[in-house]
């Protein structure tokens, strides 16, 4: 495992370089303010100033999840197309470390969306969202970022498996936003969907983030944070396991370029 940390850091650096070289990869950060305008206009037009925080938090969460889903898939696709993936597989560095490094960089950059959306509210609509419970907000955000990165690692590993899976990539965002309660708390979803969404760390994280913005007390903070972390850990474990299995199979069959 000694190669894991350098591989993680090198992958993160490569990903940051890719953002600089190809501005198109930052698309989700460009679209975040538009989603903020769209969602905030609905709550403002509905006369529900109390929901402004929901409308500004949602696009930030969507940006982060969207970037993890889209960019994780794209970076693997580019690595495969340029033959880098084959090279990675011949090195002692675990593929999971490389994927984690890339996704960690993507997730870190995607958090800029929070600032963008806050600014849209403040400058565009005169709506200033205050964080009532800063510690709850910070801890939940860190846990949510870990979960989003875990989702990215798992998806990247799935995308390595096959090209066909990639056609689902574009279709994943809105189902994840819906099940993750990005805008509307999952309690508003029909019962079956709510139960399903409770298996997804994001539904716990978005509920907690919304609670951290409102002045009332935050109920059962630690158990809920535990749910975010626990479910994220399961995703990480699944991603690592899949990446490990995949590398073993591809090394045996020699199909990295043709998988």
């Amino acid at each position, binding site marked *: 495992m000694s190669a894991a940390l350098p591989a993680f850091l090198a992958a993160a650096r490569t990903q940051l370089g890719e953002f600089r070289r*190809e*501005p*198109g990869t930052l*698309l989700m950060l*460009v*679209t975040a303010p*538009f*989603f903020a*305008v*769209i*969602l905030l*206009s*609905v*709550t403002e*037009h*509905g006369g*529900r100033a109390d*929901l402004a925080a*929901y409308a500004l938090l949602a696009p930030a969460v969507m940006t982060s999840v969207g970037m993890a889903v889209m960019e994780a898939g794209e970076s693997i696709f580019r690595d495969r197309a340029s033959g880098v993936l084959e090279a990675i597989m011949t090195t002692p560095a675990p593929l999971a470390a490389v994927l984690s490094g890339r996704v960690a960089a993507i997730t870190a950059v995607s958090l800029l969306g929070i600032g963008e959306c806050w600014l849209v509210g403040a400058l565009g609509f005169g709506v200033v969202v205050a964080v009532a419970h800063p510690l709850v907000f910070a801890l939940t955000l860190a846990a949510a970022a870990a979960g989003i990165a875990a989702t990215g690692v798992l998806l990247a590993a799935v995308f390595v498996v096959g090209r*066909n899976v990639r*056609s*689902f990539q*574009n*279709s*994943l*965002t*809105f*189902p994840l*936003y*819906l099940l993750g309660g*990005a*805008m*509307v*708390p999952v309690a*508003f*979803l029909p019962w079956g969907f709510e139960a399903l969404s409770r298996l997804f760390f994001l539904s716990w994280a978005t509920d907690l983030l919304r609670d951290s913005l409102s002045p009332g007390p935050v109920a059962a903070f630690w158990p809920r944070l535990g749910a975010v972390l626990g479910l994220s850990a399961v995703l990480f474990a699944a991603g690592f396991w899949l990446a490990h299995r995949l590398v073993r199979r591809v090394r045996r069959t020699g199909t990295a370029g043709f998988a």
Partner: protein
Amino acid sequence: MIAVLRQTMWSGWTDLRLVYTPTTWAFGWMVRVLCQVVFYSTLGTLLGDPDRTRFLLVGAAVFIAANETMMASASTTWERMSGTLSLLAAAPAGMVAVLAARSWFWIATGTLSSSIALLALAPFFGLRLGFGESAAAVALVFVTALTNYAVGLCCGSLALRFHGLRNVFANIALLTMTAFGGVMVPVAFWPAGLQWFAAAFPAVHGLAAVRLAIGGGSAPAVLAEAGFAFATAAGWLAVAAASLWWFQANARRTGSIDFGD
């Protein structure tokens, strides 16, 4: 010319079969479409306002047609990726007609997925549509997809030049329309300048026509909105054709067509 268009449309059809298999369309794309429309419609539920829920449902569902036809922007550049762009530049038929017609399939799939989303989700969000209203809605969704295709082409002509930003133009155009075009809130919510700006987009008029048709609007009012959709689309189409023609002329003169990346 007819032969060129026939070939182009056939090539578009084979592209579509590469993009989706029936399985990935049904369980990938359609699931996303339905989730997207439900995502926006439940905003109305959150606000506790049934009228708003129906407004959001219709806006989000009809704009799926705009969403898919904006993909013409990315697919216009597929000729570059498949290496056929330079062949088209050299061919006597020219590339304008080919590039303008090659992405026609998004109009078909956009109409289909948008109509399915609207008609399938309407009962769940308290929107009752009779047969006549449903048929009118589908026809006007087609008008929305058809006319918005011109906007997609315009973005595509830009994407040909700035390949790295090929998804950026289409997304910004789509989100601008979604924000200010009466999709989530009535156009009247915005300042007058933005209302005029929104009126330049065909899909905004297409959506207005759908809203009138299912909301008991008069036939002349519906036809007027549809007319505006076609009129604005003609403007966008002219700009797209000029932009594609200029791209071709410039590419032939400088011989730079394969180095655009």
